[in-house]
């Protein structure tokens, strides 16, 4: 079923929307949840929850593309779960992602500047667009989709070690970019 037809089901409050979403994007959502949370049962719950969030979000929202829309919900629910349960559980995938992103954080500087989420997103978009497409795909597959370094290395046909170094170079580049733009802690 076309995405527009699935979105129309949501708008007409037809519960078949959820079944159609699961049919078409269930594997996609599960993969992201599994990559991020790594705990199978929690990933499964996260996917179920994401359908309910989608149900509540449409209407009023009418996404042009369902994959990033659903992926965002999964990512948001994943980190919410991590925040809620990190004292009891260790989500290896997300912690690995966050640990990587931590390396992108600019260090504290004298000039303080409030960081608006939207502004930060825009800066990241600008930085991503300055990259060769190949590097951009690597970075987003790792830090948006949560694909493991090993899997990326395999997809690119290089060693995990080399992929890790490539990601390190990109993280340093983002960090440098954020610092140049005055973003700080």
């Amino acid at each position, binding site marked *: 079923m076309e995405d527009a037809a699935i979105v129309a089901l949501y708008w007409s409050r037809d519960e078949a929307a959820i079944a159609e979403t699961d049919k078409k994007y269930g594997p996609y959502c599960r*993969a992201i949840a599994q990559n991020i949370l790594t705990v199978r049962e929690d990933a499964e719950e996260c996917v179920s929850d994401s359908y309910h969030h989608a149900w509540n979000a449409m209407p009023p929202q009418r996404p042009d593309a369902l994959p990033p829309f659903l992926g965002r919900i999964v990512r948001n629910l994943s980190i919410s779960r991590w925040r809620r349960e990190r004292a009891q559980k260790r989500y290896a995938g997300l912690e690995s992602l966050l640990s990587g992103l931590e390396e992108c954080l600019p260090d504290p500087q004298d000039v303080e500047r409030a960081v608006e989420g939207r502004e930060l997103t825009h800066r990241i978009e600008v930085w991503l667009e300055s990259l060769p497409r190949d590097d951009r*795909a690597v970075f987003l597959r790792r830090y948006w989709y949560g694909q493991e370094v090993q899997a990326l*290395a395999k997809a690119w046909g290089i060693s995990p070690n080399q992929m890790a170094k490539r990601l390190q170079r990109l993280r340093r580049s983002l960090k*440098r970019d954020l610092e140049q733009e005055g973003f700080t802690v």
Partner: protein
Amino acid sequence: MTKEMLYDAMTEVKDELVLDAMAFKPVKNRVRWMKFGAIAAAFAVVVGLSAGVLSGAIPWLIGGNAAGGGTDGSQVFDVYAGPVFPLTAVEGGDGLTAERTITYDFVGWEAGFPSSNLPVTDSYTLTNPTGEDKTVTLLYPFAGDLFAIGLGKLRPTLTVDGRSVDAALLTGKYSELGDPGRPGGLPSLDDPERWEDYRELLSNGCYQASATGDWPDLSHIPVTVYEITDPWVEPGVGNKGDGHYNPNIHAELELDYSKTTVLSYGFNSYCHNPDGGTARFGFDAPQPPEEGSSVDPDFYEWERAQRHYLIVMGEPLDSFRLVGVSTGGPESTDYLDWDAEIGADLRQYETDLESALRTAAEPLYYGRDWDGVADNVEDTPEFELYFGMLKDCLLDAGLLLSDPAERYDLFYHLENVEVWAYQRVFYLEAEVTVPAAGSVTVDAQMLKKASQNHQCHSRRDRDLYGYDLVTRLGSNLDFTAQTARAVNTEGVEIVRQNFGFDWDNGVDTVELDLDQEHYYLELRRIEAK
């Protein structure tokens, strides 16, 4: 700002970037998997991946699995680690007999620590019934990838009568198996998926025979090398404040694609136009960290110290020039003033392909890690193995063929001709003397990697560890018996097997049928009650 804020900000990046990341098709070396067959299936999986994912037809990002799908009832694992192979002899083995005992040690499993790297001892008693001593060159084959074994992990050790022997590490040469540069479209699956793939590789003996020969010598092929060093850029030059600032140094080439082949090292972007006879290779110009920046100044110095190579084979280039551009796009035309705003040193010299490749292979082998591991380039056997594999890979994919139709996408960047990750068969080579009317014991001890699933459709197949062996594939030894043993099995449950183990009833040693080519053992840890 926190890492969580960064995660949240990443989550909101716009749709087209997110979608494009998955639509992008990485270019990687396609060589190895073609040797293992299953070409059509492999190709179909990769070609269908992006469409299948978005249509929901394919379990996405995580490998699917067909439990119990092996031709002999064994599991088809998401990641197949390959069987344990039997010892063989390349010279002097005639008249010897061999008995084999393989022992799987599950130590640690009962305590709740199953390891995917299982201690395995593959032991052989070689008997010489003749009246003369026999000196024999043995080969012990094993499946692995250079990344794991090159660093000393998962590499078996050989002992003879309990004494360590200095065994050379070898591998087969795909470029000598014929049919280099096969047409075949996209890069695809790279690893064998089941034991039959290894049977296809090893059964005619060509791969093993090639392992003991010399690597190809490319010193007869003249090349021109363009070496770019000491790149620099004036801080902030060309920055229009629109966020697209990423100064790059590009090499712009004009060439006849039918007569010239270009290999590159140290470039991270390129574009080419075979019809127009142009190509462009680019890399980021190192920018000095601004005052107060947390970027390690050593990183900047490391970036500046990197060398960038273009190796030109065949007819000379029609033209070559270096330019600076303000953004990272390979087709950027926002030129900077060369030598005033941006620059680098260029050295052009003539040499041979062997020497030029060796120069580029050293940083490829030792890594371009800016923390300094590249300082120690030594002429180690492992490097020679890596270098030989790199040449083998290039030749196998058609580097020296006259038709450039396939090679350009593959070989613009030497970094893409990656030899580390692919699973293949290696050999340990050792010479052993078996006394007249006597025996020696040869033990191969290893940590055998398990075949595993990332995700299964069936609960029964979750958390499985698969170990298998082949009895005679690739071996010319005259086996009189083979036995399999399992020890420390208290914490281990057998899910599938064809060995005949029944350790609940004390059957932890079984005689193997030499006519049975393949044995498999699929296990899981017994959960504590």
